Each structure stands twice: as structure tokens, then as C-alpha cells.
């Protein structure tokens, strides 16, 4: 089985891609605020989530080191034979579903916060067309896009805490561990379980220029992503406080709207919209490409390219059908639904595959 795509990613490109996948959701929806512990201790949960996500990524990393030439979808077929195709289809659905979710996020945020009178499709259709172009070109160009677009986005996220420091109040973080360690650990678990990037890692590992670097990509991406998520969460909590930030639909957006330095540096919220649209485009391209690639690999098609446009149209339909309004999206994105759903694809299925591999090996050794 070939990986289908001739394009290759450098370690840096892979890390940037995985960071932006996580960060783009956080800078708009900041789901951490409403998942446990849902108070001023959220930032502790975010730090705790880092070691937990490495644990959750272990099966994927073990599989990629065992089958460095194969993506997660192909590994399923190698391990389970034709039955593995079912798992391939499941992954194709998963990435396709995330394509639709990303489209919904862009459309619903833009219509809720920026341009309320504009039809939703005016945002999602151009995005899906540009995304289709990226997805057809393959992982190489997507990696190059990430290398160009992601650093400026990260720069803005670095800049915002500096601009918001005037209203920052350390007392907002007290009392620390108000309800003990339990809710904070629970929060760390749900935050780690949300990270669908683990499945992305399983798909792009064979597309790395250096296939032995998958673990390094994981360490770099999760550490960097957690750092930037903290750079978003800490100012929001320190300025808005836990109660106010929970009641804001887009807490980070609200924070950026509050920036006013010398009545000169102010009303810079369009900066947020800019990095959000750019980042969402990169993010959409990745999901979209992976959806087509996973489906092509599961069906043993010679190329994923013919699948791109039909999948895009279906994704637009699904995005409108599943999330007709903002509450539907926020309900789905809450930790109760999102985290277990993602966990199936990031840890449960890879762990099962790994288990079968290990059992077969031992079985063979006994009979042989």
C-alpha cells in the first residue's frame, strides 16, 4: 500500500499544522472555560492535559513506529485484513465530519459576531472552494501554507497578552484549587481527550520527510499548542474573571475588543477575525485533505483527488444540516459530546489495533 500522496512534510510544518488545528478552535470558542473545573483553575487543567495527551497518543505512536510506511487507515487494513476497511471508512467519516464542523464554526462565528446580515453560505462556500484547491494539491502545499500563515497567527496570540496586561488581575486566579484536585484532573482529562490532532498524527506520520520523527512532532506540537492555549486562557481569565468569561460566547474576542492603549491602539478586533479566518482556512484544508485521503486509502483508489469536490459539497450540506444554529454547534462542541467522540478515534481504535498486533505476535511465537 502506498501513501497515495507524493508530497512530504517537514517536522516544522507538521508541528505548525497540529498547533493551528487546536488553537483555532480555542481562540473562538475556548471550550476549556465551560468544561470542568469551570472556574479559575482551568489553566491548571490545561497544563495537566499535556502529560495526559501523551498517554492518549501512545497507541498511535506505537502503531506508527511499527508501521512507518502506513497511515492509520492503512494500518487497520494491515492488521485486520479486509475487516480493517470498516475502520478506514470510520476515519474517513471522522475527518469528513470535522471538515463540516470547521465550516460551521467559521460561518456561525462570522454571522454571530461580525456580519449578522450576511448569509452563512457567503462564508462557507468561498472557504470550501479555496479549501478544495488546497486539498487537491496535497499535503506538501498545505504544509507550505502552514509555514507561511501560522507564524503570523502565533505572533498575534503572543501579542494580545502584552496589550491586555493593563486590566490583568492576578487575584482572579485565587483561590487556587478551590474544589480540590478532582475537578482539575477531570478537566485535564477532557481537554486532552478533545485533541483530535492525535488522529491527524496517525495519518500524516507516513508523509513526514523523516519517518522516525513522528514522536518528535507529537512532543513539539502538543507542548507548543498547550503553551499557546495558555496564552489565550490566562489573559481571558485574568481580565474577565471566571464568571464573566464563562458568560461570553467568544471570550477571547471580547478580551481583544477591550484592548485600549492610550486611546490609540484600540478596536483591533478585526485582527482577531483575520487570524481566525486564515487559521480556519489552514485547519479546513487539513481536515478536508484527510477526509479525501482516508476515503481513497480505504477504498484503494489510485488517487484522493477525484473525491475532493464531492466531499466538499457534502460537507457544506452536513454543516448546515447538523448545525443550523449556534447553540447546536456549542452543544456538540461541549466536552460531554466532543471528548468521548474524539477519544474513540484518537485512542480507542488505535489501542484496539495495537492490542490485536501484540496478540498476534505472541500467538505466532507460541505456535512457531
Amino acid at each position, binding site marked *: 500500500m502506498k501513501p497515495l500522496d507524493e508530497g512530504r512534510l517537514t517536522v516544522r510544518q507538521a508541528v505548525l499544522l497540529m498547533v493551528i488545528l487546536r488553537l483555532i478552535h480555542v481562540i473562538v470558542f475556548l471550550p476549556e472555560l465551560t468544561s470542568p473545573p469551570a472556574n479559575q483553575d482551568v489553566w491548571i487543567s490545561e497544563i495537566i492535559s499535556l502529560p495526559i495527551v501523551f498517554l492518549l497518543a501512545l497507541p498511535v505512536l506505537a502503531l506508527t513506529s511499527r508501521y512507518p510506511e502506513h497511515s492509520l487507515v492503512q494500518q487497520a487494513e494491515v492488521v485486520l485484513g479486509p475487516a480493517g476497511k470498516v475502520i478506514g471508512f470510520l476515519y474517513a467519516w471522522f475527518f469528513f465530519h470535522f471538515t463540516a464542523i470547521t465550516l460551521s464554526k467559521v460561518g456561525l462565528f462570522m454571522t454571530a459576531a*461580525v*456580519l449578522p446580515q450576511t448569509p452563512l453560505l457567503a462564508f462557507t462556500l468561498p472557504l470550501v*472552494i479555496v479549501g478544495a484547491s488546497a486539498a487537491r494539491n496535497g499535503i506538501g502545499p498545505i504544509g507550505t501554507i502552514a509555514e507561511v500563515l501560522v507564524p503570523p497567527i502565533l505572533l498575534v496570540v503572543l501579542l494580545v497578552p502584552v496589550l491586555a496586561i493593563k486590566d490583568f488581575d492576578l*487575584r482572579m486566579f*485565587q483561590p487556587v484549587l478551590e474544589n480540590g484536585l478532582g475537578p482539575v484532573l477531570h478537566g485535564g482529562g477532557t481537554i486532552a481527550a478533545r485533541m483530535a490532532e492525535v488522529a491527524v498524527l496517525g495519518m500524516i506520520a507516513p508523509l513526514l520527510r523523516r519517518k522516525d520523527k513522528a514522536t518528535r512532532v507529537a512532543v513539539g506540537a502538543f507542548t507548543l499548542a498547550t503553551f499557546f492555549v495558555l496564552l489565550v486562557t490566562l489573559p481571558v481569565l485574568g481580565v474577565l*474573571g471566571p464568571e*464573566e468569561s464563562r458568560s461570553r460566547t467568544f471570550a477571547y474576542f471580547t478580551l481583544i475588543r477591550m484592548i485600549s492603549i492610550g486611546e490609540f491602539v484600540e478596536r483591533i478586533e478585526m485582527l482577531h477575525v483575520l487570524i481566525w479566518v486564515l487559521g480556519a482556512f489552514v485547519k479546513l484544508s487539513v481536515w478536508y485533505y484527510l477526509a479525501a485521503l482516508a476515503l481513497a486509502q480505504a477504498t484503494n483508489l489510485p488517487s484522493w483527488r477525484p473525491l475532493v469536490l464531492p466531499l466538499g459539497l457534502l460537507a457544506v450540506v452536513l454543516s448546515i444540516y447538523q448545525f443550523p444554529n449556534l447553540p447546536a454547534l456549542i452543544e456538540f462542541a461541549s466536552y460531554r459530546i466532543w471528548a468521548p467522540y474524539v477519544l474513540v478515534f484518537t485512542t480507542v481504535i488505535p489501542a484496539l489495533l495495537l492490542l490485536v498486533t501484540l496478540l498476534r505476535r505472541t500467538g505466532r511465537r507460541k505456535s512457531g
Partner: protein
Amino acid sequence: MTLTSRTARLAALILLLLVFTFGCWNRVELSRLGLLAAVGLDKGQPPDAVRLTLQLIRAGEVKPPAMGGGSSPAVWILSVGGSTVFDAARRAALQSSREIRWSQAYTVVIGEEMARDGIAPFLDFINRYRELRDLIWVLVTKGEAEPVLKAEHELEKIPAKAMDSMVKASYATSFVPAVRLHDFCLALSAEGQEPFAPGIEVIPLEETPSAEDTEGGDRSGVGSGGQGKQRFTFRLRDTAVFLGDRMVGWMDDRETRGLLWVRGEVKNGIIVVRSPGSEAGDVSLEIIRAHGKVTPQLKEGRLVVRVEITEEGNLEEQLSSGDLTKPEMFSQLEAAQSQAIAAEIQASVDKAKELGADVFGFGAAVHRRYPQLWKELGTRWSDEFRALPVEVSVKAKLSRFGLTTTATWPR
């Protein structure tokens, strides 16, 4: 794939994308906009729940007359009733020729009656509406908001701009707080912290001559008219204290400064103390910098709040004749300064306890230091606060005495 077919595809794609690039979907020209400068919230006449007063900028009149601006008022005020704030805001379109844009508003002025009935339902729109920012100033007026917005300011063409500048300059006295919508909502939603907002009141200006007198250019008629319209202006005064979202009372200027000492928000101001020694006469001490710290403590199982203030001031004026620049005089002045600050804080604490409203955030400090104890006290904090012992300690020092040593005084 040939080059031409590639080019054709690319051209088709670009053309297709052009369909979506009408960037100005909700395009509005500046000349068709009415910029909102201030908004007033009053209780409405039934069946209206709310009466909204809008101060809109007349863009053409803001420029001085020499630059082509008019001499007529630079703002237009309209008052609309509605079932909700947004309802009233949209009903304004039935009267306004221009689309009202909220994004540049300076202040929101809340009428006392509405404030006493509970303000949370009416703040929701102000918070939720995407055109408004959390940086808008919150003011509470004694009486109704409408006359405040109708009042003029003789130094500024746009009265709301004057309110904005006055609130920003409130540090000069620290007799009124400066409260942004963000601060107000933070206090409203926080545990163990009650909101407060500066007060604004309408005061009469001298009566103006009637229109014929001024247009004739005859200045001698000033004061003889009497049939001219009574004009009003406004000033900041006192602090509205809330319990939850309901206003429960006012703090006067000294009580307000007491509150700001505790919160560490005093930046500047004048403390007037009696001149030490046998002589009569007051002395002005200017506050240069101040710091306030609140520490809850458990003493023998009893909750006590310690308030520590450190302050540094300068002697800037004396109405007496003695030489105050001697070390022993300075230490007497320092003691008097400390006493004055402690008295302001005590007055403030007494008033807040009387109202049952913890505007200082003592409860929040207890929550931070003793989260377990707070779980028990938090639910009945208003009552606990009334009985809370507050220990005040002030370390105030004087550094300098201006450009003279002794007052110039007849021999």
C-alpha cells in the same frame, strides 16, 4: 493538461470567487449615520418597560463655526419607549433620519428609579450587542437619565464627551470612581463584591436671553429677558451603591474616597487637615501615591478584615501662618493625614455596612484566602458583612512642601 485549459480553469475559479467578494454587504456611508454619544436608561411609562434617551452627534455641527461648523447644538436628543432596550433602540429609527451607530458611545447613564428596581435585565443588551464595547462608562443619576443627556456643557460641544473627560479626570479628586461597563459587570457577577458607579446630577445654568436678543447682536439685553429657556449642565457627584443589581443608596464624596482607598484606586486628590500648633487654618495635602491592601484573618476563629493603606503626600497649601516645614510639624501633619484617611475609610465602611453592600470586595478577599469558610459564609454574606470587624491601619507620610517654606503673611 494544456496550459490554456489550466488558464481557463483558473480564470473560471477567479470569476467564481468574485461572486463572493462584494465586501460591502452592509455598506453605510458616514453621512447616513447617526453616531451615538451617550445612552440613557429610564423606567418606561407603562406599557413600556424602558425609556431610552439617545444623544446623537450631528456630524456637521461639531466643527467650530470658523471651519464651517454651525452654531446650533452639536447633538440631537431623542427619547423612545419600548418593551425592551433593543425594542426601544429600534423604535428610534421611526424618528431618526439616520441609522444609529452605537460603536462610538462614551457613556451609559442609568436613572435612579431604574437602578433601584434592578439593572441586570437592561444591561444584557448593552453587553450582548456587538456594536458596544465593555469600555463604555457607567453613570447613575439622581433622578432621571433623560435630563442629564439633555443638559449641555459649555466647554464641550458634545456633552457626552465632557462626561467622558470628567470621569477620566476623576482621579484628580478621587471623590468619584471611574467605572467601565466591564468593571461593573465584573463586580455584578463576582462573589463577595458588590457593584458601584459614579453619580451624575443636573444643575441649572444661568438663564439665557431669548432668541431675538442674541440674533440682534445686542448684548446689553442679557439678564433682562427672563423669558429665555432654563438651561442645565451636569456634574459628577457621589457614588451609587448596588446590592446585586439593585441600587440601595449613595455614598458621598468622602465615603467614596474611603471606598477607593480600600480598593487601592486612589491616585490623586487633596486631603484637608487642620494646621498643627495653636494657629487656626487648614492645610492642603496632595496625595501623590497610595496603595491599599485587604487581608482577611481568622483571630480565635473569628473573621477579621485588615485594611492597610500606605500613602505619600505633599504639603501644597496652608491657610495658617506658622512654619510647617520643620520635622516635628511634618510628623504632626503626617499623623493628621493618617487620621483623615482612616476617618474617610471608617465613614465608608459604616455606610456600606448600613446598606449591607460589600462594595470593597472583602467577601471576594475571604473567598480567595479561605475558600472553605466562604462556602459557608457566601450565601449570607450581606448579613455577615454588616457584622464584620474591619481593622484599618494607615501609614501616611509627607515628602515635600512645594516651592515655598512658610506662607507669605503680613508682618
